[in-house]
């Protein structure tokens, strides 16, 4: 009996991860984190760095915000303060992660270092924390949701930058180069990701 409950909860955590990454992709279905995508996605190696940093930060901040919201704000009836709390918490977490990383792993710090300040204003991070409130998730499920959302963003920005590297070498009609063509590429990619929808129902 216990075994069944355990495997069931493991399955649900796995499903939440997959659905956050594919069917509900934070970039292609929820439109979040577009600014950094349009700005940074012209090279694959930068995208890999930023994607990894975002995945890490979404996981940590989703867990932190979950704790603060359900154990501090809800008991005190201060739900309306959630926006300010979340953004301050995210900024503080990013700062803290940066400092810890500098001490613990020099290599990781230099690989992700320049991207970390950018992340504070990345709407994908705040977005994941806000969408999490609409869902009846427990702590582990929230962790999976944060990690899945970050991973989906990582996947999308890497794919887009791969295509953009090739596109930048071709000649385009006037006005289309830059954000115009990138948006149309993302549109085609979103069309492909729509194909995933309906695969998982939670």
């Amino acid at each position, binding site marked *: 009996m216990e075994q069944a409950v355990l495997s069931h909860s493991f399955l649900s955590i796995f499903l939440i991860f997959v659905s956050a990454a594919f069917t509900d992709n934070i970039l*292609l*279905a*929820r*439109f*979040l*984190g*577009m*600014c950094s995508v*349009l*700005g940074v996605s012209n090279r694959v190696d930068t995208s890999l760095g930023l994607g990894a940093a975002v995945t890490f930060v979404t996981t940590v901040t989703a867990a932190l915000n979950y704790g603060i919201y359900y154990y501090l704000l809800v008991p005190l009836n201060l739900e*309306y*303060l*959630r*926006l*300010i709390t979340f*953004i*301050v918490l995210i*900024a503080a977490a990013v700062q803290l992660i940066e400092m810890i990383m500098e001490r613990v792993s020099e290599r990781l710090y230099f690989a992700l270092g320049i991207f970390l300040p950018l992340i504070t*204003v*990345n*709407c994908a991070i*705040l*977005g994941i924390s*806000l*969408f999490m409130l*609409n869902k009846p998730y427990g702590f582990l499920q929230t962790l999976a949701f944060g990690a899945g959302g970050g991973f989906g963003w990582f996947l999308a920005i890497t794919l887009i930058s791969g295509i953009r590297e090739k596109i930048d070498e071709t000649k385009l*009609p*006037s*006005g*289309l180069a*830059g*954000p*115009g*063509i*990138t*948006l*149309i590429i*993302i*549109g*085609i990619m*979103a*069309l492909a990701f*729509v194909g995933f929808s309906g695969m998982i129902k939670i």
Partner: protein
Amino acid sequence: MSDSAGTILLRDVWNDNPVFRQVLGICSALAVTNLLANTLFMCAGVTIVTAMSNLTISLLRNYIPKRIRMIVQVLIIASFVMMVDIVIRAVAPDIHRFIGPYVGLIITNCIIMGRAEGFASQNRPLPSFVDGLASGIGYSMILIAIALVREPMGFGTVLGVVLPAREIWWHQWTIMVMPPGAFFMLGVITWFARNRLEKSTATEAK
């Protein structure tokens, strides 16, 4: 700054339009434009927050220490967003259910941070207020244009009113209300507007 209100207005609404020229604030531009009613609420919210936070930051610009100005600006913006969020929830609870998370995301909307940092922190209150208002209007213009294409094509309605064509011959394009439609529309609008801008600067140069 000696720019008059009119110059600021024209510059922010068209020549330096936040959406297609500076490519800022895209996230919400895509998410809320499948229904015109949602779009209007979002536009009003963004315009109010940009104008008011610009005004406040400009009034306080000499008292904010340089080193911590980012966090102070974020807190000012967050307070205004919170007010807008509460007002929308009270006035239109149905709409708030759809656009709620995106209203919260106005905080990280790059337009507002950009105007606060780039204009309000160096200018007097009145021009800053006009600048914020104009940026908001420039943003709203594009959003309403996108919504006016997506809603009729996707649902066959405008503001929830069924268009006569839907009954007779129009087959609704579901793609327009889904995410890909938003990306295509914004891509095409950016293309068109940038093309016009490039041509006008080319003729001025001659």
